[in-house]
């Protein structure tokens, strides 16, 4: 068993909107070991992106981390001051965002943007930083590194830019890469390339990856461990094989059934009725109760707790009270 790299305990991030308080991340806990890929999967509004941003203290203005602790390599990330957080970002923790087109500054060349973290964190000279940047580009399978380094973001395609983003994230040999929907904006064939690349990086550098996605296919391909979120809470988690073979929570089951899969010819797709609840001022109840086929009375008045069901699999559902069905 590998060492524990990141431990999130009872993270609570709230947003204060003009309509009320939104508990975007509502008592979320999970852990990532060294060399492990953990996928947080969920649909819109489940809080997966905010969880990732909370780790790096990058939450937008009207939000605030109200509680919990995040332990990374022995340090509590939430207690760090600004300077230490900055030293962490891009250095021990790398981030890749969804939209490669807008994650890079359009008025600087690729090279100028790549050497920034290298100079800042690794304290290399400009010349050495450029050399390292070009090495990284070549390592990621992009030809003509010397040419690329002088191009501007708008001159490259989405797939190329995302590879550059990965290069930047890797540049200081991070222990953890946080990738927030890294392939959602890319074409399918390009997505395949990028996912392949991420898998290779993990193998070669033993980097841990926190991958945020809504695509169960991506989860099946990339994850070692899966965390399923709904309306700000973790509803199920477990090792990837077990989760796909034996999903416990009705929501997870529903998601797996609702996704059309090539080769499965169905008359009608299975649907989860209704839609995600309004996150403002949620009542005490299981947030999924309105849409759940198996909803019982207790589901509407009390919120279930995350319980261990079997072999490392946990689910938060009244169907499994006391760990038994």
């Amino acid at each position, binding site marked *: 068993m590998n060492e524990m790299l990141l431990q999130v305990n009872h993270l609570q991030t709230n947003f204060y909107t*003009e309509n009320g308080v939104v508990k975007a991340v509502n008592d979320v806990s999970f852990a990532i070991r060294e060399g492990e890929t953990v996928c947080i999967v969920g649909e819109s509004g489940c809080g997966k992106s905010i969880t990732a941003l909370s780790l790096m203290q990058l939450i937008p203005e009207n939000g605030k981390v109200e509680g919990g602790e995040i332990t990374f390599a022995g340090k509590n990330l939430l207690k760090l001051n600004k300077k230490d957080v900055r030293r962490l970002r891009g250095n021990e923790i790398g981030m890749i965002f969804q939209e490669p087109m807008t994650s890079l500054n359009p008025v600087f060349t690729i090279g100028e943007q790549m050497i920034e973290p290298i100079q800042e964190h690794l304290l290399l000279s400009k010349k050495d930083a450029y050399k390292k940047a070009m090495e990284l580009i070549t390592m990621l399978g992009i030809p003509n590194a010397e040419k690329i380094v002088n191009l501007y973001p708008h001159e490259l395609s989405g797939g190329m830019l995302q590879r550059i983003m990965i290069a930047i994230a890797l540049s200081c040999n991070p222990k953890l890469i946080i990738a927030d929907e890294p392939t959602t904006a890319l074409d399918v064939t390009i997505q395949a390339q990028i996912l392949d690349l991420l898998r290779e990086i993990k193998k070669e550098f033993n980097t841990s990856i926190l991958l945020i996605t809504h695509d169960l296919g991506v989860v099946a391909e990339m994850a070692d461990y899966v965390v399923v979120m709904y309306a700000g809470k973790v509803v199920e988690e477990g090792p990837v094989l077990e989760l796909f073979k034996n999903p416990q929570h009705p929501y997870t089951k529903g998601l797996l059934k609702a996704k059309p899969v090539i080769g499965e010819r169905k008359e009608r797709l299975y649907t989860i009725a209704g*839609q995600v609840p*309004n996150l*403002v001022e949620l009542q005490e109840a299981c947030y999924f109760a309105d849409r759940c086929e198996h909803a019982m009375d207790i589901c509407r008045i009390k919120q279930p707790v995350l319980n261990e069901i079997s072999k490392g699999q946990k689910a938060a559902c009244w169907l499994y009270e006391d760990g038994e069905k």
Partner: protein
Amino acid sequence: METHSPIVKKQKTMVVVKSPSLWKQTYRRLKKNKLAIISLFFLLFMFLLSFIGPHFSPYILDRTNVADMNQPPSAAHWLGTDNYGRDVLTRLMMAGQISLTIGIAAMFLSVIIGSLLGAISGFYRGAVDMIIMRIADILMSIPGLPLLLILAAILSEWKVPAEYRLYIIMIMLSFVGWPGLARLVRGQILSLKEQPFMQATEVLGLSDRRKILHHLIPNTVPLLLVVATLNVAGSILSESALSFLGLGVVPPTPSWGNMMDAANNFMDFRKRPWLWIPPGTAIFLTVVSINLLGDGLRDALDPKMRR
């Protein structure tokens, strides 16, 4: 998804929920902005003061009384008298009528001309667009105040009778004001046209008339409202500047600008501050209030519309 407090109507057995209209929603958001509401009330106060105030004044505007001249504020004259013995407060109120009317009228003219030309430009493009925009560009590249001064000088050459002066000033101000509005409206129309919901109107086979009146214009109005509000402030300032320089509203007609002329005179400036501080303050507070209100409107209109 829940809405804001809806109005529930019962129709037979069906309960229909009707959302408050978008303007009501805007107003509700505006109400939360304390500064904007204070500004709104202040402006209302200025209006009332200017238009209704004089009825309560015991003094007739133009009656001069040399015996009373240059008196500092007192119980009889709350803001003192000027060098003709006229009550300053009454003059201030009458001047308010002039300045506010000119400001608003100039705004209306600018908005009508500007939106029309801007909409035509944006919707039809081509040669029409080019001509209108080039004219607008030329006008915008000439600095405003000097342009107004030139126009004013030309007009005094033509010896326009005093009664028509006010209208001329309104026209001049709108002449300088329409290009900015036209560009804005044109820009809005251009960006709206690319929006999928406008393509949808094409797919639905709606007529041009319907597209412009029911889709494009209602989506332009919010922005226009904000810009128009701010335009009033600009017009008041321009008129004040012109009048101060003697090229706008000329005595005996009072305007806040020409009342400030007192500041030009060394003696008046130092010894009789009640002559120029009131009009100056009036201009300042009115313009600031308009700007705050305009800002508040912009914030109130923004959130949901763009989502």
